[in-house]
């Protein structure tokens, strides 16, 4: 039976979320934006696994891992849609710079 510090794991996912947020805010390339979103997303999924793993109850473990599985699926879906957007944007704008996709307004 291994034993590990929960606090350290939480700090790790907090730091990864901060990295993702930073990336979302600063990157102008759409693909990098997607990557930053994936980083933040993974930080979130990690949390579910932690609390499952560190809980003594098998039911909680099961729940945490199940949610993680579903979330990984959602994240993958999101990447697929995001890439479709990238391709469409590239065709219309000849560029995937987020700053040029400025039509999301009245």
């Amino acid at each position, binding site marked *: 039976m291994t034993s590990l510090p929960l606090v350290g794991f939480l700090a790790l996912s907090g730091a990864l979320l901060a990295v993702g*947020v930073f990336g*979302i*805010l600063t*990157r*102008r390339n759409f693909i990098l*934006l997607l990557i930053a979103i994936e980083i933040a997303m993974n930080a979130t999924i990690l949390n579910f696994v932690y609390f499952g793993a560190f809980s003594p109850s098998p039911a909680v473990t099961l729940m945490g891992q199940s949610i993680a599985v579903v979330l990984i699926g959602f994240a993958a879906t999101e990447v697929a849609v995001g890439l479709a957007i990238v391709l469409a944007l590239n065709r219309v704008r000849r560029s995937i710079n*987020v*700053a040029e*996709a*400025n*039509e*999301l*307004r*009245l």
Partner: protein
Amino acid sequence: MDVFSGLFGVAYLIPLLMVASFVVVGLAGKRLPRLEWGGWVAVGFAGAAMVLGVLIGAGEMLHPGTWTNVQYTWFHLPGNGTGPTPNGVRLVVGTLVDPISALLLVVVTVVGFLVLLYSIGYMHHDRGLPRYYAELSLFLAAMTGVVLANNLLEFFVFWELVGVCSYFLIGFYYEKPSAASAAKEAFLVTRVGDVMFLLGIFLYFSAFATQGPAGTGGWAASGFVFAHGSTPFLAGASANSTTLTVAGIMILGGAAGKSAQFPLHVWLPDAMEGPTTVSALIHAATMVAAGVYLLAVTSVFIGFTSFDDLLIVAIGGFTAFYAATMAVVHPDIKRVIAYSTISQLGYMVLAVGAGFAMVGLFHLFTHAFFKALLFLAAGSVIHAVGTQDLFKMGGLRKPMRLTATAFAIGGLALAGIPPFAGFWSKDDILSAVYSQLGAHPAYWPFFLLAFAGVFLTAYYIFRAWFLAFSGDHPRDPTLPHAHEGPWVMQVPLVVLSAFAVGAGLFVFWPSFQGLLFHGLGAAGIPPTYGVTDLTLSAASVALAGAGILLAWRLWGNGRVFVLAESSPAQPIRRLLLNRYYFKAGYDWVGARGLYTVARAADFFDRYVIDGTVHGFERAFAYTSDRMRRIQSGVVSDYAAYVIAGLVAVFLLLLVVAPYLVARLGGT
């Protein structure tokens, strides 16, 4: 009974026939090979309607005092036993055939048929012929609807329809500005009356919603239906008499609007802008009589309070004289007859007000024939010479012998010379009112005015006759050579002349007299028909004879009487020619008074209401213009806002919430 009882039940066929005519002529009239064919179709329908109408009239004479009510419940709201209408509210449409409506039905269908026939000759130049016949058919449908209506609401609906047709037909030559404005004037002035009429209906409804003669259950339950010739509503009503008085005044207002009584008389002379046939049918014989009919029906079925009666007498008597004075000086042949129509309607109103509704309707009956005759004869003249100015005519007696005779017969009937129709009915009115003078001394001045009107009537109508027909040749040599119209124009003249001679004598026919007696039901004073007061009759005939004599002295044999410029009567003549400045006064009120109010309202609307609205609009536009700058459209900016919001939540949870918990010591 016999065939007639079935006939009374299908009286609704008369309006339906005319509606069918309206639809057929209106839709197909332009596609027929010749435009007159549409006219003949309308004449055919009107002929069928006339046969039905005359048969119904005959049936009522053979079975005096029958009341046949056929009705269909339009909708019924059941009551719950409480509230102002415990038995619920019912609205019905139906036909009521009674002596009054039978009398009117005969007038409307016979005159309508004759005028339609005459129109084929008179209007044959006109391109708008299908429109004319369609509108005239619709008018006849609406007018017979008014006559047959068995309740006040239905009455009002047809009444408005009649007004609309009148508007269309006055404005028939709509490309002529004066005709268009006359149509508008007629519509607007009668609108004043119509609004009053509607208010009157509401007031009566509130008074009779639950109360009424026994067996009717009140108006709310019976659907405004006129009681079947029993006692009038007013007799059994314990309603507030102020309400009833005001309601009566409102009904009088409606009638005054339609029947061109003072002070809503201004539209009728201007309505002569329409074709002469329209003037004959609508603005002399039928529609304008609807106001009198309304008063008569109201007085028979509902009853007026004594104050209302006095008011009606006052308006009728005054109008009878007042309108006659204006006819004395007018140079336009149609307008002279139009003023005489107003004046004669005044006599009818006077009779209704004095409590003799059926006497008034008898005059309506005879008047319809001789007034239609006068108009159609005038139409023949206008058709022949192309002008309406009496002072350009003259000497038309020789080329237009039939027309001259017809006009003379109409004039004699109008003037009240025995044995022509007008004498019997007008004399009945005067003697009936005279019989009430003892009980109601306040009627005296109006009786005297009406009596004086007899002289003026005889004078002005024979002034017109002498101006048009006497002498050797037209005063204006440029007039085309006159000739009689085609047979379709002559036949109505002959038939109407016969009626103008004989319609008054109907009163000695017991069946007809029974019709008149039973029309009143249980209401009012049973009048005596025929000559009752020989002195009075002799005086009125003498007055009329004097009027004719004066007209002959001044205008006979082609003479033209010119009032000297220095004559003290000049201001009176100007006053009369300017129609007592009444129209100018209305125009002034409209132009100055209403325009000022409208300007003020416009200012308020523009600067206060719109100002407020636009102020808000500008404030929001300014704010949103500022706000929209944060909407860059760049995706990552929006992401930044999302995250900033997240961070704000963090700060709230980490800093503000602990601080508040610490300060408030919450749990």
